[in-house]
């Protein structure tokens, strides 16, 4: 075992006390920008470092104060997929009655055309969201929208209605760092979710248990914190929660208004009272804070007893903040991002970037061209994170599940694509010709390290590594130094680009 004895001896700081302003420099600001957002340029990192921790965290979490182009409700068409109107219903019935095969074929064809158009709109929406993540001045807003998308995972693949996906996406954005309790009340009214978990046809006498089960197992409490009986009764509470067109509707006739007992609460409980019974459970805050911890800090459980013990303590502390602040997310995130624990060396540089983080981060930190979004999205799919198409209601596992031999190449090749325009898949003839400006980045890096006055290749390499990897693996450093020596230590745009190709191909680049 080649673990550094020094690191082992030093206990992990589990304090949620704020980090001192003096301890917050370039490396800490870099860490904060990558975790609370998608990374930043050397200039942005430097700016945050000059602000200090408090102002930086406020800026990132209280993002409402940052102006952004609002998302218009009519950004996507709501009428591609819609219920047939009376006239169309009649036409279909007539054709069926008369066994008019030609007419039926025509109606089917129209439906198929609509489905095809809708799939195209779903692809447009993926490009739009990805672009927003790349461009937004409020990185945490999009990062939390992605968090809720993975938490309340719903796939277009099943619901096949892009507008409903859009509405759900907006719901997550609206409550990104707001009230989780409100999100729970809204999610049982969300057409995409109601359809995804089959609640739209759940009625008195024949309740569908799908939503009730996942509401507790995956969205709030976790296994072991409820009973099968709670699911049965919860499903009854949710009967009649359905939608018409694009809007939620409560179907009183199909709602089971009888007496129920759910998680100890008694009464003629409806969906909101079911949600309230869930929110009253202490397990709830802990469950959500565990997920937030995994998203922002470290794998848990990680298989490392020392780190897991630290994580458990921090999660418990965050959960008590979450409860005392009435399930508001922002105070929890602020406390976390300011905490000494968040900056402990044991949790830094150890998070595997999600595919979205990898590509969005490449643009936002290295300032690469945005490239062809369709190609970037197909890269995301190959890497296992097809946004709007999570693999199941469990969402994405994250962590090491992202990585295998095949995705390793795709990740490295995506960076080749971002930096040089050489496509990871398909024909090179279509290579994206826009040049990445390596010199500009190096200028910024030099400016970021005022102490680094020299221009020697070794000094430049130091700065580049500190910015791009956050740490220097001696083995990789040797290889890179040798590469530069082979180029007669000439720092041309070409050699800088190639240097960055090698840096982004290191296993360490997959981490943040």
């Amino acid at each position: 075992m080649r673990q550094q004895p020094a690191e082992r001896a030093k206990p992990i700081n589990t304090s949620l006390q704020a980090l001192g302003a003096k301890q917050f420099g370039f490396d800490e600001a870099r860490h904060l920008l990558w975790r609370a957002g998608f990374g930043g340029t050397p200039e942005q990192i430097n700016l945050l470092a000059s602000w200090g921790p408090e102002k930086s965290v406020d800026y990132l979490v209280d993002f409402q104060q940052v102006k952004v182009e609002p998302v218009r409700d009519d950004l996507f068409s709501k009428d591609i997929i819609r219920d047939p109107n009376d006239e169309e219903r009649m036409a279909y019935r007539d054709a069926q009655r008369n066994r008019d095969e030609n007419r039926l074929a025509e109606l089917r064809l129209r439906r198929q055309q609509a489905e095809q158009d809708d799939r195209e709109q779903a692809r447009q929406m993926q490009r739009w969201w990805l672009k927003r993540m790349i461009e937004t001045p409020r990185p945490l807003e999009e990062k939390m929208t992605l968090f809720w998308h993975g938490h309340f995972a719903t796939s277009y693949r099943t619901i096949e209605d892009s507008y409903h996906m859009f509405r759900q996406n907006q719901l997550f954005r609206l409550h990104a760092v707001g009230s989780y309790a409100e999100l729970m009340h809204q999610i049982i009214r969300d057409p995409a979710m109601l359809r995804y978990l089959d609640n739209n046809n759940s009625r008195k006498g024949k309740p569908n248990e799908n939503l009730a089960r996942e509401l507790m197992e995956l969205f709030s409490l976790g296994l072991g914190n409820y009973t099968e009986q709670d699911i049965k009764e919860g499903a009854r509470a949710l009967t009649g929660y359905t939608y018409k067109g694009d809007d939620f509707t409560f179907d009183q006739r199909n709602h089971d208004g009888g007496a129920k007992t759910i998680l100890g609460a008694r009464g003629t409980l409806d969906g909101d009272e079911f949600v309230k019974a869930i929110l009253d459970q202490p397990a709830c805050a802990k469950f959500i804070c565990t997920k937030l911890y995994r998203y922002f800090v470290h794998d848990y459980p990680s298989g490392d007893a020392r780190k897991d013990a630290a994580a458990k303590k921090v999660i418990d502390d965050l959960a008590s903040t979450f409860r005392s602040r009435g399930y508001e997310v922002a105070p929890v995130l602020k406390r976390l991002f300011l905490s000494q624990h968040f900056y402990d060396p044991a949790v830094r540089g150890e998070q595997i970037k999600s595919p979205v983080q990898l590509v969005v981060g490449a643009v936002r930190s290295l300032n690469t061209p945005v490239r062809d979004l369709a190609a970037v999205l197909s890269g995301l799919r190959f890497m296992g994170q097809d946004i709007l198409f999570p693999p199941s209601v469990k969402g994405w596992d994250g962590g090491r599940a992202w990585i295998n031999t095949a995705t390793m190449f795709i990740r490295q090749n995506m960076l080749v694509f971002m930096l040089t325009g050489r496509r990871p898949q398909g024909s090179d003839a279509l290579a994206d010709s826009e040049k990445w400006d390596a010199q500009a980045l190096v200028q910024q890096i030099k400016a970021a390290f005022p102490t680094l006055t020299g221009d020697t290749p070794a000094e430049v390499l130091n700065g580049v590594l500190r910015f791009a990897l956050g740490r220097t693996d001696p083995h990789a450093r040797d290889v890179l130094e040798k590469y530069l020596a082979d180029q007669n230590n000439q720092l041309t745009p070409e050699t800088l680009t190639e240097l960055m190709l090698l840096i982004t191909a290191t296993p360490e680049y997959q981490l943040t």
Partner: protein
Amino acid sequence: MDTLHTAFTRRQFMIGGITLASASIALPQFLSATALGLPGAEPGATSIPGVNEDRILVVIQLSGGNDGLNTVVPYGEDAYHKARAGIGIKADKVLRLAKSEVGLHPAMAGMADLYNDGLLAIVQGVGYPNPNRSHFQSMDIWHTADTSGTGNGWLGRYFDSECCGFGKGESGTQEKDANPTIGIAVGQDAPLAMRGQKVQPIAFESADRFRWTGQDVDKGLEDDYQAISRRGGRVGNSNSDFLTRTALDAQVSSDTIRKAVAAKPRMNYPNSDLARQLQMVASMIHAKLNTRVYYVSMGGFDTHSGQGGENGRHANLLRQLSDAMKAFYADLKAMRRDTDVLTMTFSEFGRRVGQNASQGTDHGTAAPVFLAGPMVKSGVLTPHPSLKDLDSGDLKYTVDFREVYSGILEKWLKADSKKVLEANFAPAPVLNVKA
């Protein structure tokens, strides 16, 4: 060598060869390089003398919903010809199958040859309860072997069981010795069927893409890249150790796979995408990769209109499938590996019995599954589903596809089908092998 082989347990044997790289990372670098140079175990070499354990499954996915009725044709039934007035296959054109009342589409001469050589089994009427007619959903159901279409893939769960055992390890940890090449999919996407909790398949459309493309920018970067990726001495359990090991695995399997696929073709294959994919698979089998499951696919079966009959769109698809399968087995036989390779075809659903107004067919239900290889119980194994007793115009399934999976898992891959399928399905008696 004999003592070495018998000393291996089955699990260790399976993950030998390529994964020596992973096992050896604790060694100093000069030793690890030697380990990388070791050849894979000889095919046919056994952990228990006399038992061949080098069994391979090839899955051919037919995407879009293959029209089973015009593939395996119940040519003797009036109801068939009545329902298919425009696109039906005339009884005298069908390639009749001995000892059965059905025949193959006239474009499927290649598979008729396989049948006559005792290399083809046909299971008719394969489906599942409450059939779903959405392409996505029904495909997911076949991939997950779960009628809700959720969870990991059935082959992924098999890989998990082989590498890591069930229930072992928490999420976020991975056993060190998972075989990085246990499942290889030729295609853009890693199919859901092969995705497990712990083990993920390798997927590549063409092998030369299963590599770092930075070296295309400058050939001179290749050595530096290798030096960065091939790093020894990382045995810890941090994420950075894990990534370093995976990068090493990727390097090693990339070289092996690309070398295998780059080898000179041993014989001519027909000119189709599926044939190209199967030729790549044959090359990897020839190169003795330790891969258990290969996955290939062809699309275009969603024939809502202008499907054609004896000739035309659907006929062309079936010809491609059939000719490619025939060439594949000829190739395998020439390299004396045919007895190691079982092939299964499937589609997400069949199509409706009656043709539609556009000379095509719409999404239906049950359809035939083909199994090929010298180990299959050759013949038409189950009767054609009734053309009279329909479920609102659709065939009623007679065999649950998970019984076919169970037969393959139990009798060919020697896995516990109850654990892999997470349910109890009787193994369909489709193979002539002792478990």
